[in-house]
């Protein structure tokens, strides 16, 4: 705007532009104080805790750090975490895509209630998400006697860990896809179908390319949460060392045994995962906007 006016009457126009710009600003001192408050708040609550993790992990040198990660129990915890999160993320990916298709491509009654139910695990305490599976499959649980009779182990074993993690991370992929697919509407798909494409062809060649970055981000977020889940997994795990300890549970055990350096070494891997997730978010958002 100042450019257009500037060609007409330079001096007064730029004064006017400055006045308008100033009308959207606080006095300089107030601006400095606000910025200082915001930066201090973020440094205290975000930067310092994160720095603490790496400072403690590497406090006794890089060799000790690597040695802590190479412990058999640590490796077992890393392996278990990977297995659990791969299963949980894959199932929530499939669910998220299917649910987003049903919700965004069709009109049906009760749709908003369905979306609310999908969001439900976000507002349930992780501890409760674990507890419900204890009530179902525990020795005194609804299916406890039947499971024991058939020698099936769900609680304190891999299936329990997977179920609890899947419940906690249930909404992530669906919640990334639904708003975006709602915005995009159904026209592209309708054209593809009327040109003779099958439903699956339409999904893979028309819908998927439109939402791939949001889908990828949903998967990453889901994965970060799945690998880091603590409360729910802690309730169903039984804490069998080397067998049912995921990385966060192993961190807790090491910490409670005062093996702080080792605890922070394993924790630093999880913190790295969080940082990678955030960087990926930025990259994916840039991709999505540039397309």
């Amino acid at each position, binding site marked *: 705007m100042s450019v257009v006016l500037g060609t007409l009457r330079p001096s007064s126009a730029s004064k006017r532009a400055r006045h308008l710009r100033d009308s*959207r600003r606080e006095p300089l001192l107030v601006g400095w104080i606000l910025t200082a408050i915001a930066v201090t708040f973020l440094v205290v609550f975000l930067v310092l805790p994160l720095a603490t993790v790496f400072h403690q992990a590497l406090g006794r040198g890089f060799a000790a750090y690597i040695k802590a990660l190479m412990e058999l129990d640590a490796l077992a915890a890393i392996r278990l975490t990977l297995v659990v999160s791969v299963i949980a993320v894959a199932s929530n990916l499939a669910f998220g895509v299917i649910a987003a298709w049903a919700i965004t491509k069709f009109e049906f009654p009760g749709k908003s209630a369905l979306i609310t139910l999908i969001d439900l695990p976000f507002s349930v305490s992780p501890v*409760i998400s674990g507890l419900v599976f204890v009530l179902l499959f525990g020795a005194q649980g609804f299916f406890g006697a039947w499971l024991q009779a058939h020698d099936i182990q769900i609680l304190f074993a891999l299936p329990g860990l997977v179920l609890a993690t899947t419940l906690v991370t249930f909404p992530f992929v669906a*919640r990334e896809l639904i708003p975006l697919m709602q915005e995009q509407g159904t026209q592209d798909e309708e054209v593809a179908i009327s040109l003779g494409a099958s439903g699956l062809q339409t999904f893979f060649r028309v819908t998927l390319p439109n939402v791939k970055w949001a889908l990828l981000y949903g998967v990453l977020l889901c994965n970060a949460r799945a690998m880091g889940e603590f409360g729910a997994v802690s309730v169903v795990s039984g804490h069998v060392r080397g067998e049912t300890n995921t990385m966060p549970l192993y961190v807790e055990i090491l910490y409670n045994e005062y093996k702080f350096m080792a605890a922070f070494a394993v924790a630093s891997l999880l913190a790295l995962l969080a940082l990678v997730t*955030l960087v990926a978010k930025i990259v994916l958002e840039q991709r999505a906007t540039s397309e």
Partner: protein
Amino acid sequence: MSAIIANVDGPTHTAGMAASTNRKFGRHRSVIPGFGITLGLTLTWLSLIVLIPLSGLFIKSATLSLGEFWSIVTSRRALSALRLSFGLSLIAATVNLVFGAIVAWVLVRYEFPGRRIFDSIVDIPFALPTAVAGIALTTLFAENGWLGAPLTQVGIKVSYTPLGILMALIFIGLPFVVRTVQPVLLDLDAEVEEVAATLGASRWQTLTRVILPSVLPGLLTGLALAFARAVGEYGSVIFIAGNLPNVSEIAPLLIVIRLEEFKYADATAIAVVMLVVSFVLLLAINRLQRWSEQRK
């Protein structure tokens, strides 16, 4: 929650056009295949993973008589745990409301070195595992920690006290207010502020009478989300809390303790109270989000 993240500066396509064609054709039978099977799978999976397990909680609690339920929930230890969880969560959410609003404002309106990095690390509490946050905050605020040492010198003890719980709850609720308010501030029409200034409003008047009403739904949504998250939080709290019964024992920890004692009924009763509050909060958040969408 993640929907909010996606909204921050996510892709905005030709939403208006798509929405209008949607409305035009929505009433007709859709030509797109897969309605039956996708909705069927969605409902089945949702029931198996979420609805049936959660309803098991209510079935279990129904085996308790009302008197038993009441005496569990109102026992001194349960009551102090619930009071601590809800009370501290409310304080933490309020702190996040104030500082989150300032952070969002500064990130949107000011240019300073590292602004983009600060903007992206706001999401750390979403991505960092709670146990990692828990041991990091405990170490940071411990008596020999980077912040704990100077605080101890002035007589403030954070780790292993309710104040420590508050710090953890502020940490995990931090992104919510920022991420609900930021997009509203970005969308704010510059002209409205300019008009207010031209008509003689002071900066303070413009802020409180023009800007605040339009960010209010976002602020309240963020407050509710941060509160809901804090109430159920477990991992980041238990390390820093000290976990003294009646003093610094949060409700989710009491559930775990009762479970480990095989007192399933006690655990279930406390969980039901928390879950009902979560449902109410979820409905309130939905209302708030619809309200803020209407105001756009």
